[in-house]
């Protein structure tokens, strides 16, 4: 008898609690969960694998436009060139070459075009020990001064590599020095970093200990 009376009571209590629950869900009494902030898509340049520059080696290999490497389109063959320097011993570049920034080496120690270019044949390079190097073989010239880096580059551990690590399955592609370094200004310039992880909340300015001040 007792159980019979209890059953409808329990059922009604359950029904009422379900109804309350349903009402709260339908009216969103607790509110919806917070919407995620929009995360702007990342600039596609950050996922590009292209090198910083196009090297002479790549231009010749891909049969690109090498007209700017033909010095005697403008220069007169056989005519001796003299460099002009200002009072700080900086080489004065003519207007035709004003795209060049002379910043190779510290303390102006490498401030002479003919340290690398051959003054007798402008279309080739020369090393300090008197070898002549084709412009597309620039790494031989770079290596004549930068020994340890050249050694690492030859071993494949300096500079960029792409393609296949397993050479039996495909070709490994090594970049040459000037694909990344501008020979007149070889140091990497600071660049804008890609966005960091979205913090999903306002960012507190954090002063990291390493900041130089």
């Amino acid at each position: 008898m007792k159980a019979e009376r209890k059953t409808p009571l329990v059922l009604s209590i359950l029904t009422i609690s379900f109804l309350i629950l349903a009402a709260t869900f339908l009216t969103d009494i607790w509110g919806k969960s917070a919407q995620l902030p929009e995360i702007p898509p990342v600039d596609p340049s950050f996922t590009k694998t292209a090198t910083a520059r196009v090297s002479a080696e790549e231009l010749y290999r891909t049969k690109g436009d090498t007209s700017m490497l033909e010095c005697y389109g403008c220069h007169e063959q056989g005519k001796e060139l003299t460099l002009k320097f200002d009072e700080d011993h900086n080489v004065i570049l003519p207007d035709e070459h004003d795209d060049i920034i002379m910043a190779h080496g510290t303390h102006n120690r490498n401030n002479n075009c003919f340290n690398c270019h051959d003054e007798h044949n402008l279309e080739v390079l020369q090393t300090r020990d008197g070898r002549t190097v084709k412009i597309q073989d620039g790494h031989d010239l770079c290596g004549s001064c930068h020994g340890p880096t050249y050694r690492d580059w030859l071993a494949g551990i300096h500079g960029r590599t792409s393609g296949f690590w397993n050479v039996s399955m495909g070709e490994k592609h090594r970049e040459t020095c000037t694909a990344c370094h501008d020979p007149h200004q070889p140091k990497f310039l600071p660049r804008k970093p890609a966005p960091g992880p979205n913090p999903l909340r306002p960012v507190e300015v954090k002063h990291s200990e390493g900041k130089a001040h």
Partner: protein
Amino acid sequence: MSCSSNSPNSGGCGGGGCGSGSGGHEHGMDRRSFLRTSSVAVAGVAALAASLAPLRDLTDVGTAEQFFQKHYKKLTPEDMEKVLARITREVEKQYEVRPHVRDYKAMDGVEFVYALNLTRCIGCRKCVHACVAENNQSRNPEIQYIRVLKMPHGSMDPEKGDHNYTSELVPEKGSFYMPVQCQQCVNPPCVKVCPVKATWQESDGITVIDYDWCIGCRYCEAACPYFARRFNFTKPSIPKDQINPNMSYLGNRPRPQGVVEKCHFCIQRTRAGKYPACMEVCPTGARKFGNILDPDSEVSHILKTKRVFIQLKEEVGTSPRFFYYFDV
């Protein structure tokens, strides 16, 4: 016999009025009580259904085929073909891209090792985003396998690193940058804690995850000392035009909601002989990758000739296959 003697009584009761509960008719029910009970029952069921309304938001339930799929290691080649066909179908339906899904196996005589040159890294975070694009990670909420720590000079303590740096230009003076991703440990704690063996170490050193076997308990995430693992709290959202169709089962196929994922050394590239995406995009050549069992590989050369400073947190005994080194 007793039944027949009772029948006149029960017949009389059927007219109504005995539903008040008295009397010996325990199984009888009159119209009023029937209506009451049934209306309460209908209201109860309706209320229950309405109270389950939040389930409407449940997406990505998965198919029976996926539910009954066996563990990766128990799949026969025929089973695997069916599984890959199912994944192809699902990806095509969802992203309108025909993917090329494969199950790349580890190669013999290969053990992958990563080496990262801390002298060269400039903290540009290109690797982070190349990885996201290659491995079909969720864009919102963001899932990224690589964290680039900006570290003060003079310390190797990752606790001092900041991965939220918002510098205008990098590198900044007085800082160096240390990207951290899955270290592919020789002794991986994440594998030990997995209660269902959904993650394990393969013969080429890559610790992989079977996303269809993972139950999402996140023990591995807690066990990892490198913050390498990420959990899909929601269904990953990837723009259709940004899907990488070159997929592998244990690698970059789109993950379901509620599973853990992490860096797998771009299994779909490296097991096909290629370099990983983070390495190819690095503008400074700070990242090097290869087969440590090949004495002529780049990584062998680095470990032999360079100042290799750490395995990160080497004191915890995980023995990473990811080495940080310096030039000179």
